[in-house]
C-alpha cells in the first residue's frame, strides 16, 4: 500500500494531464516528453536552489513550456497533433540528455538533489496530491462553467464557438495545464521518489499514463483510478518477482506488460462503451479567416 502511494503520483498526475488535453480536443502523445522535461528541470532547479519545492515549480514550468510548443504547433500552425506529440518526445529524448551532459557533465544521472520532505507515514505531499487533485479536477470538469466549456470544445467546437467560447485559446490553456500536470508528474519522479535525475526517466510512464487515460475512459476519476491500478500492478510485480526469482521463471516482464494488455482488451472488446471525445485530434479552423 505504501509503495503504491509512493509510485502512483507521477502516473496519476500525468494521466490527469492527458485527460485535460484530450477532453479539450487535443491528442497528447507528448506526455512522455513533458514528464521528461519536468523531471530534469525539477532536479536541476532543486540542485541549484537547494529547495525541492523550487524544483517542483521548475518541473511544472518546464512541462508547461514543452506543452506550449505542442500547443503552438498543433493549434497555431495546424500540425497533426499526433506528429507534434511524437516530435516533442524525440526532442525531449535528445535535448534532455544533451542538457544533462552540458549542465552536470554526466550522461547517466544528475548529482543527488534535495528531496521533498516526507511526513511520519513516509509520504511526500505528492502522494496526497495524487489523492486530492483527481477529485478537484472531477468537480471542476463536471460541475463548473469552465469545465463545461472545456468539454464543449472537445465534443463540438463549432457549437461552442457559436455560443461565444473562443475555441483555440481555451484549447491552448488546456494543453498548457496538461503540461503543468505532466511536468509535476515528472518532477515527482526525480525530486519526489529518486532524489536525482536519471537519463532513462520517465521510462515509459508517460505512455502508461496515456493508457490510463484510455482505460479510464477519458474521465478524471477513471484515469486516476486506472493509474492507481497500474501502480498497484507494478508494486505487486515487484513483490512477486522476489519469490519468482527463486524459481528462475523471471516473469517480471509478463506483469509489466499486463496493464497494456488489459487496456488493449478493454478497447478491443469495447467493455463498457469506451469513447474518446468526439473532436479529439480534430484540428479546429475558426470561420471567417
Amino acid at each position, binding site marked *: 500500500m505504501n509503495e503504491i502511494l509512493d509510485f502512483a503520483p507521477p502516473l496519476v498526475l500525468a494521466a490527469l494531464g492527458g485527460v485535460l488535453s484530450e477532453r479539450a480536443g487535443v*491528442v497528447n*502523445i507528448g506526455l512522455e516528453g513533458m514528464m521528461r522535461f519536468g523531471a530534469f528541470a525539477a532536479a536541476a532547479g532543486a540542485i541549484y536552489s537547494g529547495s525541492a519545492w523550487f524544483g517542483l515549480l521548475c518541473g511544472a514550468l518546464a512541462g508547461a513550456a514543452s506543452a506550449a*510548443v505542442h500547443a503552438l*504547433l498543433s493549434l497555431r*500552425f*495546424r*500540425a*497533426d497533433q*499526433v*506528429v*507534434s506529440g*511524437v*516530435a*516533442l*518526445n*524525440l*526532442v*525531449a*529524448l*535528445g*535535448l534532455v*540528455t*544533451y542538457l544533462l*551532459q*552540458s549542465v552536470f557533465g554526466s*550522461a547517466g544521472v544528475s548529482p543527488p538533489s534535495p528531496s521533498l520532505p516526507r511526513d511520519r507515514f513516509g509520504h511526500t505531499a505528492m502522494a496526497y496530491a495524487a489523492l486530492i487533485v483527481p477529485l478537484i479536477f472531477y468537480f471542476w470538469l463536471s460541475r463548473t462553467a469552465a469545465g463545461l466549456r472545456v468539454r464543449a470544445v472537445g465534443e463540438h467546437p463549432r457549437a461552442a464557438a457559436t455560443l461565444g467560447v473562443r475555441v483555440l485559446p481555451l484549447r491552448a490553456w488546456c494543453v498548457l495545464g496538461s503540461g503543468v500536470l505532466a511536468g509535476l508528474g515528472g518532477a515527482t519522479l526525480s525530486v519526489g521518489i529518486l532524489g536525482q535525475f536519471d537519463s532513462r526517466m520517465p521510462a*515509459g510512464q508517460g*505512455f*502508461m499514463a*496515456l*493508457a490510463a487515460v*484510455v482505460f479510464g475512459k477519458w474521465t478524471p476519476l477513471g484515469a486516476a483510478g486506472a493509474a492507481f491500478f497500474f501502480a498497484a500492478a507494478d508494486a505487486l510485480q515487484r513483490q512477486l518477482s522476489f519469490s519468482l*526469482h527463486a524459481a*528462475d*521463471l*523471471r*516473469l*517480471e*516482464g*509478463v506483469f*509489466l*506488460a499486463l496493464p*497494456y*494488455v488489459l*487496456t*488493449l482488451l478493454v*478497447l*478491443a*472488446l*469495447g467493455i463498457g462503451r469506451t469513447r*474518446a471525445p468526439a473532436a479529439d485530434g480534430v484540428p479546429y479552423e475558426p470561420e471567417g479567416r
Partner: protein
Amino acid sequence: MRNRLFTAARDPLWSAVAAVLAALLVSFVAIALSGRDPLAGFGNLASGALAGPGPLGETAIKSAVLILTGLSVAVAFTVGLFNIGAEGQLIWGGLAAAVVGRFDNPLALPLSLAAAAIAGGAWGFIPGALKVRRGVHEVISTILLNWVAIHLVHGWLVAGPLSAATGSASISVAGTEPIAHAAWLPRLIPGSRLDLGFPLALAIAAAVWFLLTRTRRGFEWRAVGAGAEAAHASGIPSGRRVCEAMALSGALAGLAGAFLILGTEHKYPGVFRTGYGFDGIAVALVGGGTAAGTAIAGLFFGAVRAGATRLQLSGIHPSFAELIQGIAVLLVAAPRIFLPLWKRLRRSAAEPAAAAPPIPTVQP
C-alpha cells in the same frame, strides 16, 4: 492523392529541406551556446559519417535500419494509418531472427530474415485488424503493443526462457545464445562494417516504391488512404487493404530488427533499446511519406547518427543526433511555419518580372 499528414505542406520537398536546414542551424546555435566550437563539432560529425570506409560503413548500416523502419511507417501512411508501433515490430523481428538464426544450415540467413518479417508482420497486423474490426485507434493500440513487446521480450523471454545464462540472477544482460555464422549478414568490404543489409534495404525501398506507385494493389492502398469510404464504395475491400498494409509495415520493421541482430549484434542482447522504431517516424515524415523520400531521409539521418558518435571528441553526447532529428520533425510537422518564408521568396522571385514593365512608362 495525398494523406492528411501531408496536406498542410504545399511543397513537401522544400518544407523537408527547410526543416532539416533549420534543425541543423538550431543545433549549431545550441552547441555554440554551450560554449563549445560548433564548427569543430560539425567537422567531427561529418568525418564520423563520411571519412573513409569505416565511417561510411557505419553510415550504411544505420541508414539501412532507418530506411526500413521509415518505409514501415510510410507504408502505413499510404492507407492513412499512423504506425507508432515500429519499435515493437522491430523487437519481435529481431527476436525471431535471433531464434531462427541459431540453427546452423546453409539457408540460415534467408530463413532468419523470413522469420523476422513474419513475426514483425504479425505484430503489425494486430493493430490493423483492431482498427478495422473494433474501431480501435491505431495510434493508441500501437503504443500499447510497443510496451507489450518491450516487456514480454526484454523482461521475460530474453531474461528467462531464451536466456543464454543459467542459474545466477545477475546475468539478465547476457541475452540469447549467439546465432550461427551462416546467419550473419555478410560483410562486403574489409575495414568496414558495411554488410549486405545496406544494398538489401535499398532494393526493398525500390520494391516498395514499385508496389506503391506501379501496381494495382498500391493504387488501392493509396485510394483507401485518401478516403476509405469512397474506396469502399468503388469496390475496394478497404478493411482488408488496411490489414495488408499494416502487415507489410510490420514486416518491414521486423526486417529492420533482423538487420540489427544478423548484421551487428549476432545474438539478441539483454539490453536492446534501439529507438530505431521511433526514428522511423521521423524518417518517414521528413521523407514526405514516399519511398524515395524515405530512402533519402534514412540516408541522411543514418549519416547524422553515425557521425554523432564522433561528436564525443568535441565533448558532445551522441544523443545530439536525436535532437537534430526531433527538431526536424517538429518543423516538418508544421510546414505553415515556413509559409511567410515561401511568400517572401515567391514575391522576390516575381518582383523583377512584375517591376520591369512599369519602368519605361515612367519616362515622359
